């Protein structure tokens, strides 16, 4: 989960793409160079093998050549020729001395198995006087004999075979045979056989091998195996040599080796014998420590990866870090603050982005300020609309009362009422201000009460008991008067007993609590509850309000000005009437 989340970020994507691309590049590079290294090693090994094979051919050739020299020496032996021509007794001294000389050759060269001369007349001179000829052998049938006759004086090199000419002895040899021709009349005198110990060739082939598994083998022109380290496997077909493919190398100058599975074959031909020498090299012997090459390549790959990985990380985080920083600052929008990015250390693109963002934030801030101002204006106009106007009925009733009192000649009362009315208007205008001192508000309500008391002929009494500490506190103008008006018209006017209106005011925590209490008609508990519910609900929803719109207006104005925490609430009073409680914040009026 975490991983998929991580690859969704720009940084991890950049990193991933870079890594994959570099992986592919390093992989291809390593593969190519690894193959190249292997090829180089293989080619140089094979080149060495070819030299080795060349040496083997040379050694075998020189070995055969050495033997041929002996055969030449024997055939040039005049005594021998005379002996063969005349036919001689095996007990003769000539026979003995010839045998002696042949014996010397055998002794001098421990790689000669036998030297035998077969006379045309049938006489046989063995190089070793102690040996018994195998009575069951018909020499005329022997291949070395027949091919020497056919060759007519040239040396014939046989393939490897088991020589059974000596009784009870079966030895592996390669035979050199040639016809001895009389230098006098060109007549055939007999056949000279020089048997070479095959072990010598075998040892040569086995000594010049490469690696633990490599081997050499020899094939004669008729494709018979002269030597193969595991000839029996060849004949029982447990091992196959791709002879045809190897032979095709002889016609192809460009190819120096033939590759099959894990073996490499190379062929050289001995000019002296016509034998084909083939060397076999195993792949595992060529590059013995390919694992080390491999490990070092893998290690190199790892280091490259780490370096490139770190670099990629730097590049990707270099791109994304300024973006992240920008993003963090932009997040401040969520909380409502509009921070500016300001100068940032980043590439030109990011800086451009930051500048544009800052411009945008500037615009937004300006718009927000304008909005606040507009709201303020709207609120003010709302307040104005809600501001209780002096009831015109009240005005002309009061003026009627003044006229009436004037006619009656009650000058003192006229003055009192007129000055109260004047005060009432002065305060309610208050030079257009919303807020006034509580003391002014008291004066306002007192003027109103004075007028009403005179009009209603002492139908009620009133008491104002407000903490003088609060006099300097501010209050929305015309807060108390509508409540008092309400108490008179809906409370006291309805009852027969003398009414009492009490206005109290006290500090209430950080707020101010004002109360207007009457002992008028009062309300049922249900009605009070309905009123309170109405007050706490959305302002302006007061449809039919028995209490008159004035009280509701006061409530809405307080809430509009100070917030929903403030406002009015109704309670039953102990005197049977109602008690209206006003809560407003406590604040001094600004000058």
């Amino acid at each position, binding site marked *: 989960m975490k*991983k998929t989340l*991580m690859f969704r970020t720009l*940084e*991890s994507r950049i*990193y991933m793409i870079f*890594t994959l691309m570099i*992986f592919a590049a*390093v*992989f291809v590079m*390593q*593969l190519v160079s*690894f*193959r190249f290294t*292997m090829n180089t090693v293989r080619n140089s090994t094979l080149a060495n093998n070819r030299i080795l094979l060349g040496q083997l051919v040379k050694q075998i050739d020189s070995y055969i050549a050495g033997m041929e020299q002996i055969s030449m020496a024997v055939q040039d032996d005049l005594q021998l020729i005379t002996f063969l021509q005349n036919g001689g007794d095996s007990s003769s001294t000539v026979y003995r001395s010839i045998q002696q000389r042949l014996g010397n050759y055998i002794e001098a060269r421990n790689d000669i198995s036998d030297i035998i001369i077969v006379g045309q007349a049938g006489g046989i001179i063995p190089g070793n006087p102690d040996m018994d000829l*195998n009575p*069951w052998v018909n020499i005329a049938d022997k291949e070395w004999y027949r091919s020497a006759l056919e060759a007519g004086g040239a040396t014939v090199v046989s*393939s490897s*075979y*088991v020589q*059974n000419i000596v*009784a*009870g002895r*079966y*030895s*592996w040899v390669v035979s050199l045979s040639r016809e001895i021709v009389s230098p006098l009349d060109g007549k055939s005198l007999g056949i000279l056989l020089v048997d070479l*110990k*095959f*072990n010598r060739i*075998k040892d040569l082939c086995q000594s010049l091998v490469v690696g*633990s*598994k490599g081997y050499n083998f020899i094939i004669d022109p008729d494709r*018979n195996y002269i030597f193969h*380290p*595991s*000839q*029996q*496997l060849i*004949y*029982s077909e*447990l091992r196959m040599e791709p002879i045809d493919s190897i032979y095709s190398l002889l016609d192809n100058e460009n190819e120096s080796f033939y590759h099959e599975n*894990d073996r490499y074959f190379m062929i050289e031909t001995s000019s002296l014998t016509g034998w084909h020498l083939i060397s076999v090299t195993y*792949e*595992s012997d060529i*590059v013995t420590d*390919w694992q080390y090459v*491999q*490990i070092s*390549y*893998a*290690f190199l*790959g*790892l280091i490259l*990866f*780490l370096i490139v*990985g*770190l670099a990629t*990380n730097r590049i990707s985080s270099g791109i994304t870090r300024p973006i992240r920083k920008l993003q963090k600052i932009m997040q401040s929008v969520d909380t409502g603050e509009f921070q500016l990015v300001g100068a940032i250390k980043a590439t030109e693109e990011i800086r451009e982005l930051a500048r544009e963002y800052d411009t945008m934030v500037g615009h937004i801030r300006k718009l927000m300020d304008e909005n606040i101002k507009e709201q303020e204006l709207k609120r003010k106009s709302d307040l104005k609309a809600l501001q209780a106007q002096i009831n015109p009925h009240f005005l002309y009733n009061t003026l009627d009362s003044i006229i009436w009192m004037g006619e009656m000649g009650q000058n003192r009362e006229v003055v009192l009422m007129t000055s109260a009315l004047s005060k009432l208007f002065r305060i309610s205008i208050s030079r257009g201000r919303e807020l006034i001192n509580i003391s002014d508000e008291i004066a306002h309500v007192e003027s109103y009460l004075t007028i009403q008391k005179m009009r209603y002929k002492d139908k009620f009494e009133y008491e104002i008991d407000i903490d003088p500490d609060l006099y300097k506190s501010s209050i929305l103008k015309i807060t108390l008067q509508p409540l008092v008006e309400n108490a008179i018209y809906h409370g006291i006017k309805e009852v027969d007993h003398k009414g009492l209106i009490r206005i109290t005011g006290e500090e209430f925590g950080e707020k101010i609590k004002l109360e207007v209490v009457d002992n008028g008609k009062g309300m049922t508990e249900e009605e009070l509850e309905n009123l309170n519910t109405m007050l706490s609900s959305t302002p302006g929803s007061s449809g039919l309000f028995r209490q008159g719109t004035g009280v509701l207006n006061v409530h809405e104005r307080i809430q509009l000005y100070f917030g929903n925490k403030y406002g009015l609430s109704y309670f039953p009073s102990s005197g049977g009437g109602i008690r209206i409680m006003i809560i407003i914040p406590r604040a001094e009026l600004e000058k």
Partner: protein
Amino acid sequence: MKNWYLFLLSLVAAFILFMILSFFYNHTSSEELELSEPIQIVFKSIKGQPMDFWEVVEQGIDEAAKEFGVQVNISGPRYEREINRQINILNAVIDENPPLIILAANDFKRLVASVERADSMGIPVITIDSGIESDIPVSFIATDNIDAGNKAGREMKRLIALNENKIIAIVSHIKETSSAINREAGVREALSSEDIIGTWFCDVETEKAYAITLELLKNREIGGIVALNEVATLGVAKAIDEQQASDRVFVVGFDNAVRELAYLEEGIIKATVVQRPYNMGYLSIKTAVEYLKGEKVETFLDTDSILITKDNMFKREYQELLFPVGNQ
């Protein structure tokens, strides 16, 4: 925060790289079996005559060991008749806990207990040349002796038709050996229409075979003797040679001791059935390697036998078989 996966990614990538690079050369080298211990081989006998049967088996083993890159260790009693000694040697070999044991059993039954012990220790056993009376060995690599006996029998049948004397005798080597039992069965199968007077056992002693033959030659109607192994053949041939009876008694033998081949050339032995010990040794290791690699191996592998007569003994393809190139 990203450093760990950066590091991990690089490691994984390098590892993948390594694996892929390995793959290119693995196909040649991973085929080689890596064994900490050598494969143990217990022969019927060791240090016999140069170029005898077991030495050629050993050559085949060495060639295969080289080719497949495994180590081998060969042990065995001095003589084939030393069955108890072979059991002791086998037990000692088992205690070394080798990866595999190749056994040429000197007794069909008495080596079973030891082989069972090897099996209980989880050591696989391959038997060569002569098996044991058990299903435990994972493979048995030998000359199909019934077939080899059959070849000898058929040759004898051909020869006896040319002979006035029609009675045939069999000289076997040892009674309770599977090779003797099977060869005799093969011979008798091929000669079912001929008159076989009986089988004699020489207990792998030339002198005894010689003595038996002298006894048999007293019977003037004897026209053929089939000798079932090298020792028996040499004993029989020696008697025939001395009595100059090669014209009236035709011998078909087994194996290819140098002396036997001389007898063959002289005509004292008319034919001999030879095994392929080199192939036996080679195939035993090849099979062992295949088994250890977890490949399926044949429960029986016939290494084949060849009938050699005077006419074909110097043929190119048989020369190496009859006259192994040793260090003469």
